[in-house]
């Protein structure tokens, strides 16, 4: 499936700003057999700073730019065209991995893919393995089932028991609050699912990306209504990494576009910046994902 993503991030300031530094992670990565980046453009409206591109520690595409001229708004536009593929074809005996012996296998495996994956067990800034998380993991995960079934169950559990509610949480809301309030947004659910898996020493990554949304039946799709999305990627040994979207209770497929992988939101937040100003900037984001 060929998807085009137009992503616009706009900061408006009350007063003139002379200097800002920004780092964005908005260029989809290439994933063999899953997605292929056909084209990508990034531009800043009305300003032409030099934009530096590099690959970060996790293999993501990072752009950095600095604006040192007077401006009152900062508008970052990206335009990506991505071909996505159906990657469910190799599923055969995925149930072979039992939760219990997986843990052990993990510990003693000398394969490099295994120990590199083990970095995604370690707690990270947004994903602290608290008592609450451990308790939650012990309640939801079940050693009697395979790793795959456990992931499906966990995703299902979050989807059914947690309410999607914008505005209730912010990026700093800790996981125990999500657990007790039972609501949040996709980034919270992704963090919760990752934390639960890590509590049982299963490597899990945070995925930032997009999802193609469809309008309610009989209605036109509105422009700019999409947003960035986040979900979870879990290590399955020889099978590699499988993805789960607890917000929608599905396994990502052709409608999901991956931007970047990291330990949590902090590693790969799509846009961040530091400005030298006295006032608080206003932020507006619009995303359009459309089929070509």
């Amino acid at each position, binding site marked *: 499936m060929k998807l085009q993503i137009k992503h616009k991030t706009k900061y408006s300031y009350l007063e003139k700003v002379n200097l800002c530094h*920004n*780092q964005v992670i908005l260029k989809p990565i290439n994933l063999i057999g899953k997605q292929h980046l056909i084209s990508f453009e990034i531009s800043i409206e009305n300003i032409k700073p030099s934009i530096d591109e590099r690959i970060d520690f996790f293999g993501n595409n990072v752009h950095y730019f600095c604006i040192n001229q007077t401006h009152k708004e900062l508008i970052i536009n990206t335009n990506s065209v991505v071909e996505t593929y159906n990657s469910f074809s190799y599923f055969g005996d995925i149930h072979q991995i039992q939760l219990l012996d997986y843990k052990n296998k993990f510990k003693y495996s000398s394969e490099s893919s295994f120990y590199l994956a083990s970095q995604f067990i370690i707690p990270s800034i947004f994903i602290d*393995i608290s008592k609450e998380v451990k308790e939650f993991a012990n309640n939801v995960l079940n050693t009697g089932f395979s790793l795959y079934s456990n992931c499906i169950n966990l995703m299902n559990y979050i989807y059914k028991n947690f309410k999607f509610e*914008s505005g209730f949480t912010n990026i700093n809301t800790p996981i125990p609050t999500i657990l007790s309030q039972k609501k949040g947004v*996709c980034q919270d659910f992704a963090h919760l699912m990752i934390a639960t898996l890590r509590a049982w020493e299963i490597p899990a990554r945070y995925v930032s990306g997009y999802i193609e949304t469809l309008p309610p039946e009989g209605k036109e799709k509105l422009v700019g209504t*999409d947003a960035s999305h986040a979900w979870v990627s879990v290590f399955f040994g020889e099978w590699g990494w499988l993805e789960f979207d607890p917000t929608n209770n599905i396994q990502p497929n052709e409608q999901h576009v991956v931007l970047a992988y990291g330990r949590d939101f902090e590693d790969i937040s*799509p846009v961040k910046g530091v400005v030298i100003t*006295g006032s608080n900037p206003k932020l507006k984001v619009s995303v359009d994902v459309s089929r070509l």
Partner: protein
Amino acid sequence: MNLTYTQNYNLYSGEKDEMLLENGMVSSHWQNLNHEIDKLGLFELENRHNEIKRLIKENGVTYSVYKDPNGLNRPWQLDPLPYLIPQDRWQTIEKGLIQRAHLLDLIAKDIYGEQKIIKNRIVPLELIYGHSGFLRSCVQMNSNINQFLTIYAADMALGSDGRVWVLNDRTQAPSGLGYSLENRSVMSRVFPEWFQNSQVRKLTSFFKIYRKTISALCLNKEDPRIVVLTPGQRNETYFEQAFLANYLGITLVQGEDLTIQNDKVWIRSIRGLEQVDIILRRVDDNFCDPLELRADSRLGVPGLLQAVRKKNVIIANPIGSSILENVGLQGFLPSLSKYFLNEELISPHVATWWCGQEKEQTYVFDNLNNLIVKKIDKAHFSHSIIGWELSNQQLYDLKEEIKQNPKSFAAQEHIQFTTTPSFSNCQIESRFSVFRCSILGTGSTYQVMPGGLARSAAERGSFIISNQAGGISKDTWVLGMEPKNTSEQIHIGTDRDHNNDFGLPSRMAENLFWIGRYTERITSTARLMRTLIASINERSLKSSKDEKVASQFLLKSFTHFTSTYPGFLDENNKTILQKPDKELIKIARDLSIPGSLPYSLQSLFRSVNEIRSYWSSDIWRVLESLEQGKDLLNKTEKITLAQLQNHLDQKIINLTAFVGLVEEGLTKEQGWDLFDLGRRIEKSLGLLTLIRSTLVNKASESAEYLIMETVLDGLELQNHYRHKYRSHLNIDNILHLILLDSTNPRSLTFQLKKLDKRLKYLASQGDKNQNVRTTRLAFELTSSFKLSMAENLAQSKGFLREDLDYILSTSTSKLYEINDLINQNYFSHSHIKLLDKPIIDESSI
């Protein structure tokens, strides 16, 4: 040998001592010094100790303690008895440290490079990846670097087995060099005979190599711009940072002084932006760049990592070095030494067990009551937990805590250390000591400083030794022959053999400007207050109506002058003008009132500390006595007007001395003009306010006479007037003398002339276009007074001198405009704000 003091030597029982051997003999390397101590006697030693304290106080040597509300700028403590290291032991230490520095260098390069030690399973992945010092954004960033650690320090102690043990590694921004130098400089002044009669290795040549090494870090520039990046005056070792910067002739900067543009680092100076090539960093890793590292940091420079990545700046030590301070890593050093060097460690390291491994965790749990437990990445901040001091319940709780997160804990064995003589409470007793050695990576090889910073425990028997816990420092003497003949002369600021044609950094300029303003503000407030007190004292109960009117005019004028409203203008307080003592004393001692003396003094000291590296020891001495007076004012007990008067006299003398020393000591490059500019603006504003609030509204002739008398007094112009006019006071002459007389150094015209001159100099420094407006304003100001005649200004319509009022009020607003323009043009302020990160909240398909 039978020595007097060793007979009374207060040994802490059960521990081995470095000086007094178990057989009652004095160890050979202590014999010489013991002889000296006995020659001196305890009484004289105490005298010298007091001399040390005095010097340290005068030199402003401080160390800030974080949790103590009075801990900021606490005086540094120095034991008169040094820590001695004999020649043969030193040779082993030196070898051990060079090996260790080399090993750490290889480890750091590997962690931020290929990570072979992880891939080859020498070190578990979690130990590195789970440590907060492993900065993912720095991986592969310093790939071109020759030596990772330019300066590295190790804390060491002599074990009772005679071996020197390494306790800790300090790799990101080790402190100690400056304090070592200061300790040595004080010791050699207080005990010159000890140095003459002992063979103590000198420190100065190490610092020469240090300075050269830093310059050489930048390969492609002959005379690179170097800065020391400090977290600022609230940091515990701020004194040392300023001291070292001054000693090495390097600019001391804070994050806000720097900016990144075009992937390069620039310093904001009054000449504009100037490129920085090398940063000696005293800011911790995580705080260096709010864009890529800790976003809440206000100590760093946004975009700094990008500049490093583009190889446009060199930072020593590189950001990311704190991974080497990982306590857990220390347990793996023996195997890492085998892996990298195929050698055994020369200096033994305290056995360390990282709890992230099952076997080690079991050992730790089984032996917890004999071990010291630390968090692997918070070794700096959290206290070590001493196993044998815990109750059974506490041991149980600790185990539970470790179980929750075993990977973040490590335990270390307890080594029996030796004690060493320490002078305390007029006697010599034994204390546990550790010493910190600094090692310099000179590019191809390593240099160990032949000395260091020793510290002994705050209490006898205690082996918790840290400055935060009140430890006492000791000069460290490495005994033995100098490799070459070198002289020990420690002169601060004389090492400027480098081309320093750089612009004055904006923040320094700003602080100098404000120091100028505050100095003048405090002096003139004190003078005026002194005069008012004198006139109150003279006032009799049966004062005339005119006297009352004059006094009210003057008191109200004082409130205007100090901007301490409502003050004497308070309509609701009818008695305040009759009984002014209370309000005057309040302005003299209430810190919470902006405009009060202590408030201005506090602001002055804040600015003085901000640019600490500027001040000579003479200036510190004056500042020290100025500060002592501050305490007297802040106390709550009663103070009489007479006491206050004496106090004000003292303040005025101190401030005048300060101005004199600054005038004498600050060069143009160092910003003398900024300091003077601040003084002139403040003085001008004060004169304008004072005249406006006393002489614009006309009082009766005899009241006005009294007012003029006091005004002259408050400005210290009585003699001038008498000398010049030899007549009764009259308003024309008064206005001429105070406002228009260009030969009177206290007149407004005189101030404005100086102001004009300073502004012209500043304009020659920066962007010319920026300064058109300021020079124009200054011209307008000076010419408006040049064109005025005192007789005309003195004319009045009814009770109002309109022309006088007009010229004073327009001049005031012009001065404020100049002030604002200086701010804008030379002291660019940066308030860092983080952009909100977009929330990721896609809902459904």
